[in-house]
């Protein structure tokens, strides 16, 4: 086992039926790392988490925690904390008793229980809530109690199953930041399951993107967003324009792609993008929209377009444009300057830096 690897999942497989299978999934989580499993519902991320926690049995593969086999232990002997999506607080117990639940099972002495619960309540900023019942707490407070309840046992790994999905938007952002700072402060290894890419990008050191029970890509948030490995990742993370085409020429680190609508795009030949049929990924915020005949228009990747749609989002404007030949692309512009005057049916030119294009095998 290489040093610093906390959790090692090898070939994890869970078969529900011949058609519905999760895995094989393999990944490693490093000590102190915030690792996310990201994917749409039904992609197997929660199954993976439940396998680690011991609520689902593996059909194949193994899970090791610090080199020690985990998958043959019953759930109560695994020493991995899990924060549930609905928090799963015990409604018949006070906040204090909820947090003391695990300590009592471990026969910790009474004064020590009081001391440790008190300390953890201060850590999650709820010291005066000890005597309340869960029903008397707000969603965010319940969330913090659920984290405290797992954290007080000092598990080797803390796992979260979509912990923010039941909170409203503002609270979600606030709890997200709190969660991150808490994890940083404690240096605790965390595995975080979510379908929300923004959450995953904001929180994680590394992300595993899952689809249909398989891992599509593992990487840092930057990797995943800037250099998606597959069209699935490109479409799932952020918004994207994917244009189908063929590589027709290559010269000094660049590839020329001819799209199906007859446009020629000059791309930085990044990655192992193959040779034949490709998709070109253009992130909407990397598209510049200029008035026709502007000096920037001399570039290769410059196309005439007609605005067909303007969506006003406050901070941003989303602009849909049709290129010659019918190809539609979407651009995301900041709501400032010239962008504010764009209107439907206006003729414009779009400019894309070759380095901002990414080739993906189709």
């Amino acid at each position, binding site marked *: 086992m290489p040093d610093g690897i906390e959790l090692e999942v090898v070939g994890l497989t869970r078969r529900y039926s011949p058609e519905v299978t999760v895995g094989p999934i393999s990944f490693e989580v490093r000590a102190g790392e915030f690792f996310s499993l990201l994917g749409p519902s039904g992609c197997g991320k929660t199954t993976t988490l439940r396998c680690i*926690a*011991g*609520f689902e049995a593996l059909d194949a593969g193994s899970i090791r925690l610090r080199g020690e086999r985990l998958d043959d232990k*019953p*759930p*109560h*002997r*695994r020493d*991995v*904390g*899990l924060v*549930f*999506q*609905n*928090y*799963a*607080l*015990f*409604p*018949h117990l006070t906040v204090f008793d909820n947090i003391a*639940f*695990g300590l009592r*099972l*471990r026969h910790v002495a009474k004064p020590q229980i009081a001391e440790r619960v008190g300390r953890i309540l201060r850590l999650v900023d709820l010291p005066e809530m000890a005597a309340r*019942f*869960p*029903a*008397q707490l707000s969603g965010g407070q*319940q969330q913090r109690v659920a984290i405290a*309840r*797992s954290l007080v*046992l000092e598990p080797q790994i803390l796992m979260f199953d979509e912990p923010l999905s*039941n909170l409203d938007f503002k609270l979600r952002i606030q709890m997200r930041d709190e969660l991150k700072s808490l994890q940083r402060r404690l240096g605790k290894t965390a595995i975080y399951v979510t379908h929300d890419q923004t959450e995953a990008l904001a929180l994680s050191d590394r992300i595993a993107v899952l689809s249909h029970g398989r891992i599509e890509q593992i990487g840092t948030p930057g990797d995943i967003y800037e250099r998606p490995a597959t069209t699935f990742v490109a479409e799932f993370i952020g918004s994207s324009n994917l244009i189908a085409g063929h590589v027709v020429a290559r010269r000094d680190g660049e590839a020329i792609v001819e799209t199906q609508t007859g446009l020629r795009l000059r791309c930085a030949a990044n990655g192992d993008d193959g040779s034949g049929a490709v998709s070109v990924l253009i992130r909407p915020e990397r598209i510049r929209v200029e008035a026709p005949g502007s000096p920037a228009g001399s570039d290769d990747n410059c196309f005439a377009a007609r605005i067909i749609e303007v969506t006003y989002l406050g901070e941003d404007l989303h602009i849909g444009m049709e290129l010659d030949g019918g190809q539609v692309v979407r651009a995301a512009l900041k709501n400032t300057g010239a962008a504010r005057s764009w209107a439907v049916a206006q003729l414009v030119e779009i400019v894309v830096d070759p380095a901002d294009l990414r080739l993906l095998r189709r």
Partner: protein
Amino acid sequence: MSLQSPAPHPNPLPASGAREFPENGPRAFPLPVGRGEGQGEGQATATRASARPVWGVLTGPYALFLLCLLIVPFANVALYSVHPYSPTHIVLPEFTWDNYRKILDLYYLRLFARTLQLGLVTTIICALLGYPLAYWLARARPRMQTIGLFLVIMPLMVSTVIRIFGWIVILGRKGLINEALIGLGLAPLKLLYTETAVVIGLVNIFMPFMVLPLMSAIERIPPSLEEAARNLGANWLQMFRRTILPLSLPGLISGSLLVYSVSISAFVTPALMGSPRERMAGQQIYDEVLVSFNWPSASSLALTLVLFTLLLMFAALFATRRAGRIEPGSRETSP
């Protein structure tokens, strides 16, 4: 009221119909199942102004039914119970507590003690056998749950007499069990016409009354609570004792209460399966009404039994409410 002119056979059973289902039994059933307070309150405040006349229309017909066929006859019984018995007139128009004083006789004390004890044993057995069943039903897949529920409720759909005849065939002196014992070279047991037989019969019929409220209570406990307890280091038994059991307590109380109150007022089962010498209160009341025509005595017995059951109901209701006070939490934490 028919006090002044006691016709010999005005109505064979003044209190109500079959004693197998006492007055409070059927009515009490929805009460423990829908025990949440918060929910009802919210609905009531939201619709109070507009819904008031509708309430009367919705509950009126049954209220009228109850008034004519339960409250009035019952008041009649209460009146009988404080009048002296006369062999010629059945009831004399005088006031007396003698019918109640008589209950303190050893014979009646034993009768009540036996009745309450049989009820208790039946309830405990129903709880022990019903709890695992209710847990399984609550956690089963919808299809299995439907099948299981059907099987649990089945005994209620078979006529009491036919069901008891079945038990006689099994438990009788030359019944299935004893034939098997003899075949194995063992001595036959006296099963039928004993208290054991009565308990077996009562458990068989009243099991649904235990299982249904328990199941609905367990169903409300999110499975994630079980997993959370396991994740925090509880083995299955610790998890059960610390989460499922306390959270299902309201259901267990309602179920026990239902089984207990219908058991102590059972009549047909003890009459057909029990010992004629060791009777239960229901049989005694029946005999005093129909055989000795001592309606005042029967009324005092019936009223005592009903009052005892009511007392128990309120005690349990109080306990359930206290347990239910924390109940809204389980709803809010698990939307």
